[in-house]
């Protein structure tokens, strides 16, 4: 332990602690902009300076980089300290007048306005992003380039590096959010969303209080924002990088919040020019609705053929309204219909029409989105008994108010979301409910919060229990369910531990109704005879990019194509099918520019934990004692305050939306990002001459074994080529496994290097002091005029480059000019033309 005093207070901290850390431990606030706990201190911003007395010396020092030492005296708030801090923040604020963080620190320090002519930079050159990228992530995707006030954060050659893992650590540590402009890559949430919604974009819009714009951005892709905002399993949140800090952003709840604030009628969705073609949408579930919505917006005459008396598919008849109030869904469906979509209710394929009849009726294309509405059987004896009802059937009958007989004690079988919905619905209708599941709660595929809700409301779980047979009375009415206890064995393919029956553990559960909810499938029997190909999983076979079936003009998506999946997936695929239908009808190439979406981002290995930790907002719910007996919506939604606060938790990874948000009202504002094109690893740029590659390889080999060899290698290349050609830099990067950004950082730091070709003759005017006082600036002026280039430039004929040199050490010959190896001393400006002539007259110097 080390003892020191900070502001006369005795502090004891472990060795190796910095003054900044020690001060924070005792609650003394020291401002800083370039410090981040997880990476090495930098000491660059100088905002954290403190006065340190060590021995006889008192000096100002950056507290972030100063390790404590026994007996030192630290003062954090003397006038001397404040003076430096005020100047530093003033300088930074003047450079970047629009950054709120600078304003707030400046105001705290008593600087109320920038003192200097203001600039327009948004980067304060704290170097945090590049340091976190190379030091913590060891990637080196971005790097500082240039020196002094010319330094800036860049990607090599302005291109996004293929080594970028999109971890977003750079954006997380950036105190100004500016770095997002540099790395234009999609955030993991956006990349993950099966419907391709610009997730980050709408979260940011909610953050800014622009709910209407947020909904409009969502509706670019997803016509049912309020609906999905309630029931979407939100895979985006699983990838949300915020969870590497604490917990993911409550993205889905924010979507619901935004949708709840907005009247869809006021959005004024744009619609394309009407087109004459008629398109038939078979099935009005999420896939069909999405397809219809996008086709209608593209101008097509769209008709939905719906077997049921209502639209919405599983959203309507599979999800109870305490989770998704019917009115919410209906409002959004009505909005879709308002685009001119027609509906034929109670019209089922195979019964009321066929693919052929559609064609005859003038439909130029057909979309099949019939969903999965047939429940999977348990496969136990007695399953046909009176009192056994499939979960999907139960939910449909209930939501459509069809009559059915409810048991007093219901056994619901399964552990998925449908099972939970069935259980909770039965409970609300007055039954005692037992949930029979063959594994434990940990393995349940249903959402944890829904399981929790169900249990709170009074559903009784029976884990590690599997049905064996259905017991009936003489009338064939259910009297009980024979069950068997299970135990968990080895993990199966899905990674879950396989339940293994326990011999002799059978018992009978005394129930009068049994509702299996172990899965659904599509009713593909209706396609028999049409020639439509299906898979062995009983789903429709399609091209995975275009969603074309084997029948020309027939497309399919949704659960009927994927098997039971999530609504947002069906909606995304429905849109893709709509794009295909549009291309089909306009006879365009189906595949051009389309790729199978692939997730490309990775979690950072070592995310810099240590930022402001702010837990995720919890969705408020009605109490279970109340909800268990009625169908009121359980979740009540975020308040304004909660929603805005939650949205600020978004790390705003990379964010191409930032620039869109910068100019609201412009066409690009609501443009969703295009899918990421997964490129193969970039190839090295080609050398002009094959011999060049050998030359560079030789230079690299010469210094290969040396430590710190980058500078000698670059000097060698620079000398050979007279500049640093890009292929050579990439060559070095590949060969020595140094990130290109690191190489460019060095290459742009030293005067000797040039990243552009230079002239045959380097004309160096010496600007050493000896030459300066003897008039070398006038030589430079004259050279600029004679060569018609500015200092640092190269003549068009590539003969001369003009590069002032700091001092060539020939001060007694001042003022001097060096051209390649030749030095000319004691010059006056009118000697210049004569000297230049020596080089223009005889080309080979």
């Amino acid at each position, binding site marked *: 332990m080390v003892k020191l005093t900070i502001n006369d207070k005795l502090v004891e901290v472990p060795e190796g602690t910095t003054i900044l850390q020690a001060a924070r431990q005792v609650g003394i606030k020291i401002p800083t902009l370039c410090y981040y706990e997880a990476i090495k201190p930098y000491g660059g911003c100088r905002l954290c300076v403190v006065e340190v007395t060590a021995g006889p010396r008192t000096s100002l020092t950056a507290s972030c980089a100063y390790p404590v030492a026994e007996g030192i005296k630290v003062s954090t708030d003397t006038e001397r300290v404040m003076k430096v801090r005020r100047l530093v923040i003033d300088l930074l604020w003047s450079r970047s007048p629009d950054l709120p963080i600078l304003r707030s620190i400046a105001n705290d320090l008593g600087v109320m306005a920038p003192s200097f002519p203001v600039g327009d930079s948004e980067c304060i050159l704290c170097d945090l992003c590049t340091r976190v990228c190379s030091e913590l992530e060891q990637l080196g995707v971005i790097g500082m380039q240039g020196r002094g006030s010319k330094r800036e954060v860049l990607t090599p050659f302005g291109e996004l590096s293929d080594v970028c893992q999109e971890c977003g650590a750079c954006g997380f540590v950036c105190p100004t959010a500016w770095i997002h402009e540099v790395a234009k890559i999609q955030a993991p949430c956006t990349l993950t969303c099966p419907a391709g919604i610009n997730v980050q974009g709408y979260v940011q819009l909610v953050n800014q209080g622009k709910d209407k714009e947020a909904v409009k951005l969502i509706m670019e892709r997803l016509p049912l924002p309020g609906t999905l905002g309630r029931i979407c399993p939100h895979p985006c949140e699983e990838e949300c990088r915020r969870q590497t800090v604490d917990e993911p952003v409550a993205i889905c709840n924010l979507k619901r919040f935004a949708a709840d604030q907005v009247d869809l009628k006021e959005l004024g969705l744009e619609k394309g020019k009407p087109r004459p073609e008629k398109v038939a949408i078979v099935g009005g579930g999420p896939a069909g609705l999405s397809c219809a919505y996008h086709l209608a917006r593209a101008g097509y005459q769209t008709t939905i053929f719906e077997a049921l008396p209502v639209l919405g598919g599983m959203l309507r008849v599979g999800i109870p309204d305490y989770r998704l109030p019917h009115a919410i869904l209906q409002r959004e469906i009505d909005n879709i219909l308002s685009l001119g979509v027609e509906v034929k209710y109670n019209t089922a394929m195979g019964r009321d029409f066929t693919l052929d009849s559609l064609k005859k009726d003038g439909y130029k294309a057909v979309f099949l989105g019939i969903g999965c509405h047939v429940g999977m059987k348990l496969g136990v004896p007695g399953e046909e008994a009176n009192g056994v009802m499939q979960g999907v059937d139960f939910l449909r009958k209930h939501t459509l108010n069809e009559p059915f007989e409810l048991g007093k004690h219901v056994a619901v079988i399964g552990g998925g979301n449908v099972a939970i919905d069935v259980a909770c619905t039965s409970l609300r209708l007055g039954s005692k409910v037992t949930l029979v599941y063959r594994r434990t709660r940990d393995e349940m595929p249903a959402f944890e919060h829904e399981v929790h809700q169900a249990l709170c409301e009074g559903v009784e779980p029976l884990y590690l229990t599997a049905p064996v047979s259905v017991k009936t009375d003489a009338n064939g009415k259910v009297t009980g369910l024979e069950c068997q206890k299970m135990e968990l064995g080895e993990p199966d393919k899905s990674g879950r531990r396989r339940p293994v029956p326990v011999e002799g553990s059978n018992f009978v559960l005394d129930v009068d109704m049994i509702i299996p909810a172990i899965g659904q499938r599509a009713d593909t029997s209706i396609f028999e005879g049409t020639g439509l190909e299906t898979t062995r999983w009983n789903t429709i076979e399609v091209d995975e990019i275009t969603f074309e079936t084997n029948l020309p003009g027939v497309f399919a998506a949704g659960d009927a194509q994927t098997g039971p999946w999530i609504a947002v997936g069906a909606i995304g695929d429905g849109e893709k099918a709509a794009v295909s239908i549009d291309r089909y009808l306009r006879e365009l190439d189906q595949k051009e520019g389309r790729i199978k979406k692939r997730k490309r981002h990775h979690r950072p290995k070592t995310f810099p934990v240590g930022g402001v930790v702010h837990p995720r907002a919890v969705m408020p719910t009605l109490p279970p004692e109340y909800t268990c007996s009625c169908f009121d919506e359980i979740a009540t939604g975020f308040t304004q305050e909660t929603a805005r606060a939650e949205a600020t938790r978004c790390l705003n990874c990379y964010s191409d939306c930032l620039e869109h948000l910068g100019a609201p009202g412009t066409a690009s504002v609501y443009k969703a990002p295009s899918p990421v094109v997964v490129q193969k690893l970039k190839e090295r740029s080609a050398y002009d001459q094959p011999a060049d590659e050998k030359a560079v390889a030789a230079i690299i080999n010469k210094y290969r074994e040396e430590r710190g060899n980058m500078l*000698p290698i670059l000097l060698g290349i620079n000398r050979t080529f007279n500049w640093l050609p890009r292929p050579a830099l990439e060559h070095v990067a590949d060969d020595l496994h140094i990130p290109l950004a690191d190489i460019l950082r060095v290459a742009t730091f030293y005067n000797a290097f040039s990243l552009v070709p230079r002239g045959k003759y380097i004309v160096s005017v010496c600007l050493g002091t000896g030459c300066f006082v003897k008039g070398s600036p006038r030589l430079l002026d004259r050279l600029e005029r004679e060569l018609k280039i500015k200092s640092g430039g190269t003549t068009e004929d590539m003969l001369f480059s003009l590069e002032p040199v700091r*001092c060539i050490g020939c001060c007694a010959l001042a003022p001097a000019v060096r051209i390649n190896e030749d030095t000319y001393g004691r010059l006056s400006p009118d000697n210049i033309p004569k000297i230049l002539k020596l080089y223009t007259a005889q080309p080979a110097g």
Partner: protein
Amino acid sequence: MRIKTLDDLQAVKGEGLKLTYPEKIKIMVGMATCGISAGADKVYKALEKKITELGVDAVLEMTGCIGFCQREPLVDVVYPHRVRISYQAMTPDKAEAMVEAIKEGQIYPENLLCRIDQEELLVDGKVKVYANPHPVELSVEVPKYEEVPFFKKQVKVALRNCGYINPERIEESIGRGGYLALYKALKEMTPREVIDVVKASGLRGRGGGGFPTGLKWEFCYNNASDMKYVICNADEGDPGAFMDRGILEGDPHALLEGMAIGAYAVGAKEGYIYCRAEYPLALKRLEIAIEQAEKRGLLGDNIFGTDFSFRLKIREGAGAFVCGEETALIASIEGKVGEPRQRPPFPAQSGLWGKPTIINNVKTWSHIAPIIVRGSEWYTSFGTKQSPGTTVFALVGKIIDAGLVEIPLGTTLREMIFDIGGGIAGKKNFKAVQTGGPSGGCIPAQYLDTPVEYDTLGALGSIMGSGGMIVMDERDCMVNVAKYFLDFTMEESCGKCTPCREGTLRLMEMLESITRGVGTLEDIDQLMEMSETIKDGSLCGLGQTAPNPVLTTIKYFREEYEAHITQKKCPAKVCKELITFHVDEEKCNGCGRCRLVCPVEAVEGAKKELHKILQDKCIKCGTCFDRCKFDAIIVE
């Protein structure tokens, strides 16, 4: 032959002395960069040609710079057992004539600079006398070396061999006492004793900071580590300074030997010389020197048969002034950008690759060997109590005799400028002398009697620096000079810390508005206040000293700033926005010279008639002013 014993060393010494002082006429050409730039290579070739042509029995040699750059190219003719004669401002024609004279047995009578009757063999503590017992009579009249004002007050320790030996031959260095100190240290002294001698000598870092060298070594010595490094800072970046170049090109072994001794003292096995790429000749001679020292066993394993092994590598700098700062220099050797980091930890605790490291400047290293052999008392007999010893300055600017001079510390500025340097060139008046490069300050006439020492210069707001001394006259605008230095530091700031990066930029803006005549008096106060804060708040030496030129020029030449602001005049007639060029109607005789040299055709007038400068075309380049022989161009 590898040198393992003292006898071996003495044998090579004998060889070397024979090379340096052969038994026949030897012609030496000063072939350092400044000499070559002034045409020494052409002179050398002419000599070579003529010697062969005439079959003269003479040795032609090249040597480093003896320091008198103003008079380059310098050629010396050594007559064995008689005298050595120095010639100045030689040309190929004159060189040929000289060989002809030698062939005739005569002493070439033109371009004479001085005669040298004896040379000091500093390390040995002996004097090499050409003619015993008395100097010979010569047929020509030529001043003695010690009578030439430029040489008179100089004491050459670091420059002991520059201009006397061929720097590309280790034998000549050994001949004049080279590597004797290394032998003595390794065989007769413990590392501790070496450090004690250096401490007692009072040698302070000649790179500018003036930190006691022995103390630095002691810190490093006390930090136990499996690996330690010594580094020579040869990244001479100060504009207007070339002391290190002089040593590197004239006597590289002085530095090598010093480093080996330092490595032995602190326990280092490896060393680096970080030399700027702008010195190609220095780099070449260093390479040769290292190779020869390795061949002779004076670098490498088991030097002088002891357990001590030491390897030296050269690292080329790529042009960044900030790399003169020790932590930046280390980063640069590690292959990174030369960004300084905060100290502590000091390099002596954690330096190159995180290991204890000492960094000293070329000049500092070059002082080591004589101190070890001759002892600390001998060394402290030069200089002052606070600043013992000698140091090298590059005396340049508006001075009659520019060059490289080594003086005992405590010599006054006046002695340096007016005695050694011969005063101000061109009948102008002295205005200021700038020391310490961009980190230093401008010292006005009233302080000319200040002795040159670390603390005295510091008290004036300047610094000793690495040795640049630039003399300015009445035609130098001090605001413009401040701007010049600030432009330098602004461009050379690495950009890591805010005060230096952004602060210099803002100081520059204010200075620019003053030189454009749009500044205010408040600007001066703000410049001063900001300068002080930048000094206090910056991370490294660059930023901590960058405002010094601004502060000293305001301190000593405030009225010049005020003239720019209140009268919109540049008293030195430099700042373009504030001056105009006119023709003096009385003096102009219509020679037309100004019209011919004007690059923008801003002068009109028929031959033999009064000329006129067209103000709308004039770019104020000053060419006409320079060229007019009749002082007929007026600047106002």
